């Protein structure tokens, strides 16, 4: 039994018939071929599958696909504009916040949701808000630094 799903992904309206028992991450990865969103555990425990839905960071690996009905979804693929990186992406690269990169899309989307909500987070807020993301490579230090730098840049861009 398939259900009709209408949703918007990275600004594009999508209409598909889907198996409603599917998780959102599988819809994104297998149906839309947006493989930038990663699966680290499929149990909602590592944050690698984080996307933004209606402005909020969500774990797409435990999200039933039908929850995306009429929603606005932003995935990592929707962050860069015409080859220009979003400041969060840029700071992650420059600051050495990326190693194996498997947690990176989720971290970046989590950061985007955090900074949209709170443009001037403290170190403690960054650590607390992003503590649901597991990174086994970096020790988190450079990620925290990159998030704070990106926040600063985004504030400056807003001021300009």
């Amino acid at each position, binding site marked *: 039994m398939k259900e009709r799903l209408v949703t918007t992904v990275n600004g594009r309206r999508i209409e598909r018939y889907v198996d409603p028992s599917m998780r959102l991450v599988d819809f994104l*990865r*297998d149906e839309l*071929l*947006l*493989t*930038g*969103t*990663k*699966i*680290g*555990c*499929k*149990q909602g*425990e*590592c944050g*690698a599958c984080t996307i933004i839905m209606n402005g909020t960071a969500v774990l797409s690996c435990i999200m039933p696909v039908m929850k995306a009905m009429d929603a606005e979804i932003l*995935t*990592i*693929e929707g*962050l*860069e504009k015409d080859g220009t*990186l979003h400041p969060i*992406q*840029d700071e*992650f*690269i*420059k*600051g*050495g916040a*990326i*190693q*194996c*990169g*498997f*947690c*990176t*899309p989720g971290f*970046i989307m989590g950061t985007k949701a955090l900074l949209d909500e709170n443009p001037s987070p403290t170190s403690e807020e*960054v*650590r*607390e808000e*992003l*503590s*649901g*993301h*597991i*990174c*086994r*490579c*970096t*020790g*988190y*230090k*450079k*990620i*925290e630094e990159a998030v704070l730098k990106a926040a600063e840049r985004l504030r400056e861009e807003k001021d300009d």
Partner: protein
Amino acid sequence: MTKYVGKNIPRLDGYDKATGRGLYTTDVNLPHMLHAAVLRSPYAHAKVVSIDVSEAEKMDGVVAIATRDNTPRTYFNVTASMILTVPPAKPVLDQQIFPDVVRYIGDEVAAVAAETLEIAKEAIKKIKVVYEELPAVYDVEEAMKDGAPQVQPDFSPGNNLCGGVIKIRQGDVDAAWDEGEVYAEHTMYLPRVKQAQLETHGAVASYNPDGNLKVYSTTQTPYPCKVIIATVFGMPSSYVRVKNPPHVGGGFGVRIGISAKAELIASALSIIAKRPVKYIYSREEDFLASDTRHGGLIKCRLAAKKDGTFVALDAKACMNTGAYATFGPDLVAVLGACGIAGIYGIPNIRYDGHAIYTNQQTAGAFRGYGTPQGTIATEMCVDSIAKQLGMDALELRLKNTTRVGADWWFPYPVKSTYLNECLEQCAESIGWKEKRGKKQTGTIRRGVGIACGTHVSNAAPFCVDYDAAYMRIESDGTLHVASSIPEIGPGVTTGLLQIAAETVGVPLETSRLAYGDTDVGPFDIGSHASRTLYAVGHLFVKIGKELKKQILEWAAKFLYVDVETLDLVDGEIIGSCEKSRLCIKPMPLGELAYEAHLRGKQFLVHGCEVPPNSPPWHAHAAEVEVDMETGMVKVLKVAAAHDVGVAINPVLVEGQIEGAVAMGVGYAIREEMTYEEGKGFYNDSYHKYMLPTMDEMPEIDTIIVDAFDPAGPYGAKGIGECGLVPTAPAIISAVEDAIGIRFYEMPMTPGRVLKKIKEVYGDDLENL
């Protein structure tokens, strides 16, 4: 002055990874591809009497079923030791794809390839297996007793010993022992811990009936992986191609060789189905059916003079290697060499290492490869000697560390060590003088501790360790380098291109490294042993110089000038003003290369070499807070000082240190695989395995000491594993400083700590 070496070049795969464009094995989808699931043993030790696949076969969408009955029976070892063991030693080949006797809960019994993963998972439930349960053994000390159940009777001389006793001998411990005036003797119990890399093991295998097999893989050693696959299936190695897609979501040692059995199972199914097959381990399978770090016990004793001079060190390690050898024997050797024999200049050393089979999942390589375990044991004795002598633990270390030119056990010389600088700088950062040994009272108690160590910059000459690569100049003057090394995360492919561009004298911006593919580059042992930047970098310097020479010699003939008057700098041929007509106008390499191209010449070099080896050195100081009421240990700060020689890319080096510190913190106070008899390991998910998270990380002061190694490329040494080595012992030492209790069992979880506090201080915590 260098243009690229020593510079913080942002990693070249950053764009791919930050945008989600880059492919990992889990992202690979091929036309007509099937999905695989694996049936695993529910018993720790059992004979597989029969396997009935008839019900599963009937299922709609099931395309291929692989069992012992239709797959090769070849014995192998999933690790690269299979093809890299130095004669006369022989690799232990004790694994089969689907064994007749399953030896741990999770051992492979059968696999299904189906049109969807859901169908494959349903199908394995319908496979009927008759098992005949056998007696099992889980504990190292139990397994070594006479009469214990034998896990691998065909591959063990008895008492579940795997691969023989590893012996390291220097001087005469027995004769020298009485020269000691103060003695330390302790036994350290170590947990199993898991790599828990973010991308689980996986492979997409595509077998073509013309005999070619292409495998996308998460391996951290593509070339050895290819050779193992070819050997297991009896195929010409040249017909097998292993490729990282190119990204790999971490490694930390867990896929040196093949990725558990991912490549073999995907290949076996693809050969049967003649269609591509994707097999991605679930997180549960990754936790429960691939190598962990070795747990076990290390007995260690140290004799010293009253002035603190170490006289003799005697150690015995018994490590739980699980159901199959994988890296067991090799790893206990490194444990003894780097963790026991390497750190201090001690004239008399004896070490006996035992890898012991048990009916648990396998233990193998995990960042540090035994060195962290050995270092914890050595440092426990060093701290004990300091305590007994009333000597500062830092001073005692400074007095005994290995020196340049030391007469040590290793077959290569110590050409550089800045270990004492590391010790002093991390001590300074932590506030050692002010804080160490300050009596603590009350509920929250603070302490500082220190530890140090060494490791390797590659695995030579302990295993067959070499690299080969090609370098060429394209007809537009740009540099192309080809190697089969993988990039598992540290950024070596960026650092290596910095070395190549620097050496040849061309811009980094137009240079490219093709990697992670056995069809692209010749043999390379791969990424492990803190080796890749050091060893492949050493080769790149060698062939980069040859390439430059070849270019300049051709340029000299072409330009009718003496070759000595020419140089290649930043992509331009420049001449000396005294003799050359190129004095005024440098010639872009692109112009020269195109002229060469028009005359049928490409500048092209290749090389193959065994690298030298340079021990890296490191010292960490930690500050902790212990809650006497909850037993909670909080690590406040780790000052991590490292002698990596010259840092080719300091930000990348810092990244290696910081990530390894985080793992070391987890190792010391949280992470542990807990075995439940009859059920297997409890820790089947991130939720049940306590990894450090962002909000719990201590402050890390990352210190790269000013150093240079004469053997390394541009003075560099290895770094990948080093940050893990001294972290846990520094934290154990800090806990002892805080509460006066030394832990001989890890991790220092609240339960364990509170139990000890009650033992020592009694139940009346009010009176602390």
